């Protein structure tokens, strides 16, 4: 059985399996966002950018530092 984006289930030859990888990504992204919004030091914009980073194939440390230090915004403004 796989759980799709809408939470619908599909049976696979009578044996149940769950698409845990997708579920894991979803739980991770939601929980990360929830915890970030609780921080007084992270702005809404930074929160959005950091959550966007999680959807990328891979994230580098400097990408994260850029968002946290605000360098990304100044680069974009330039």
């Amino acid at each position, binding site marked *: 059985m796989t759980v799709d984006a809408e939470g619908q289930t599909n049976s696979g030859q009578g044996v149940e*399996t769950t698409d845990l*990888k997708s579920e894991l990504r979803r*739980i*991770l992204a939601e929980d990360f966002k*929830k915890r*970030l919004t609780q921080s007084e*030091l*992270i702005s809404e914009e930074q929160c959005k950018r950091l959550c966007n980073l999680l959807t990328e194939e891979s*994230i580098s440390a400097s990408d*994260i530092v850029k968002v946290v230090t605000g360098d990304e915004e100044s680069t974009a403004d330039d």
Partner: protein
Amino acid sequence: MTERIREIRFSSFRGLPDYTCKLNGKNISIFGGTGKGKSAIVDGIEFFFSRSLRRFHGEGSGNIDADKAIRHVLKEEQLSVELAFIPTNESVRRRLSDYSIPTATHSSIQEYINQHPPAGAFVLRRSQLLEFIHDQEAKRYQKYIHLLGLDYIDATQKSFVEAEEMIETQRFECQQRLNDALQLFRDPDMDWTPADLSAVLTKCAEVAQPFSVDTLTEWQQLDSAISVLDARRSKETKQRIDALNLAIDHLKVETPSEIESTVAALNQLHAQLRKIQAKSEEVLRGGVIEEGLKYFQEHPGITKCPLCEKTLEAGYQATFERLAERNRALGELRDLERQRSEKLDVLVTALQRLLDQLDKEQEEDYALYPEGDAQTLIKHCAALQEWVRLIKSTKEQRTYEDIIVPPVIKVVQSIRSTIHNSLVKERDALTQPAAVALEKAVGFLQRAKEKEPEIRAAESAKADSLKLRHAMQDVQEAFSRARESAVQTVFDKIAEKVLSYYHKLHDSDDANESSECTGLSLTSTSRAAAGGLQLAIEFLGIVDSYDPRAFLSEGHLDSLGLCLYLATVRTFNNSGSLLVLDDVLTSIDMEHRHRVAELLLEDFSDFQLVVTTHDEYWFNLLQSKVLARGEQDKWRFKQIARWTLEKGPESAAYEGTWDWIETNLVEENYRELGGSLRLVLEDFLKRVADKIELKVKYHIAGKYVAGDFNFAGIRDNLRERLIEEAPNEESEIQKDISRVFGTGDLINFLSHDNPGRLEVTLTETKDFVNGLKSLEQRCKTHKLIKGISL
């Protein structure tokens, strides 16, 4: 997944010089003794999906040349493993030179390949059965994460930790700059150093107060305070003393302490890098691969290699993916290189700071230095600059030689220290005993005036960096906790499945004899980048959360290992994908093998199974279970009789004997069927004799022929048993028996160069074939035959 494997073709691969394993889209069980090539088949599957074999890499693999080890020792030709699929008739071949699996034309095959996790997640070998149980928590976690194909989670976690380290390094540097600036105000007699800028101002007020400076509470008042003090000084000496004070302050700045420690850390990294470099030729190409990848990213769609200018045979996308995969494989190297690059940056920054300080001193203070010392310093500075240039160029190289801190750094520091003492001596000599306190106060205030902007900036940078660190800590903590929670959700699901499988294997019908493992947990134990995974069981409901090794027998641990693996496969792998079990049931007893067979047939019916074994009992048991479930159409059972270096594995009977007979039972070819008919007849007789426990003259290694069974009276025995089971069908049974046993020399005539060969008709041959088929069906119906036909 709609595709299944039709056959696997091996060419020059390990012990398989030129071999095809036919599955026809079914599951396959392969039986053969030790050294018959079973594991080479499994190796081939692993090679196809990952290009490398896990046991030739990593810990304990010694100095095995992995690429050499997977070649056939006699074959010079290109090594390859090819998977042919059904229902599409396409095949995909992977050669040693293919760093990624070649792209399939059919999207369904590409989907099949893409949906398979890393090979370790669907290929289980006996030696790996206990790994999850014996592993340390950290290792178990890493393996699990890799098996589950969740490496991206850890890679992301690592990036968050690295980001936190980068911010912390920035904060540390800000703190260091502030400390260095405040250190100039240190009073060694009082063992006092100001904590911040306001402490400097307070000290200014304190030292100026005895000289009628009543108010010094704001930095704006500093100039007037200096003027008040200045008016009291000797006009003849004050200018010289001021210059000396400045020079002395400059000389108080010491050689950056991090130079020595950074070089030591760099040398450790270099030692690790040299070790990796010695193990793999690929590492030497690391730089080219990285550069190549960058070039490909910047030039999408190029058709020629930028180096040799030859056309990219595999095309842009395949070449790009291959480079990316090779680059990923060098992950450990890249990580160490990143750390090396960071350390080199720290070293270069520290050295540059020292050079800037020396330049400043040369420009402002050298005229005050004792004769000769300035020239000596200039000479040493040139040597130091040359070393800094070398260090900078090291960053671009991948030679990883040890770095030796040149003696010139200590020599320079020693000369500066001597000059410092000399200048202090001169200043003190110029100062009248009654004016010592005044001069000290003036020196302090002037220093404060000079350094105030620098300290203010350093304090501001420190405050900013601290705020950033807290923000980064919040971000890192948010991800760590989110990761921990998400991963735990997965582990809880797997643990639930493991326990249900364990119960399936071990619960008894006897209510008093239940499985001793009554609970099981997989708990993520650390939020650091390298996490841990604790495996614990509840033992008979009495002892909770304990290492299973403390209570379970070796056999139970084996089955727990198997349950862990199968639960992971069931939870994560896609329906229709492969599951390969290479001789994993050796240490599990008969009763539990029955249950393993049932578990595989029940819970993995949507997978394509490849099960190898050297255990004939298990091979037969699986056949019986398949027969009992009426699933013989979903399985192939294959016996490997022998293996030779030149030919590889050879089957007890060549594959698809019945298919071969059906295809060739035509006028043009039926006379070539003698050997095949003999094989299927002997296979049938052997399995019937085994089931009805016929007393046959013993032959070692099962080398029986049809005559042995005929002499033992199989014909009459079988006829009587079939009639006993189905008396109403007596005449048909008699007819089938005579069609098979009454054909005299039909098989012999067809097998030999004999005039009788020409006398055998197609009708007679068909009659024999149909008789044998009918008889086999009767035997199956009345359970008078073992196993599944060839």
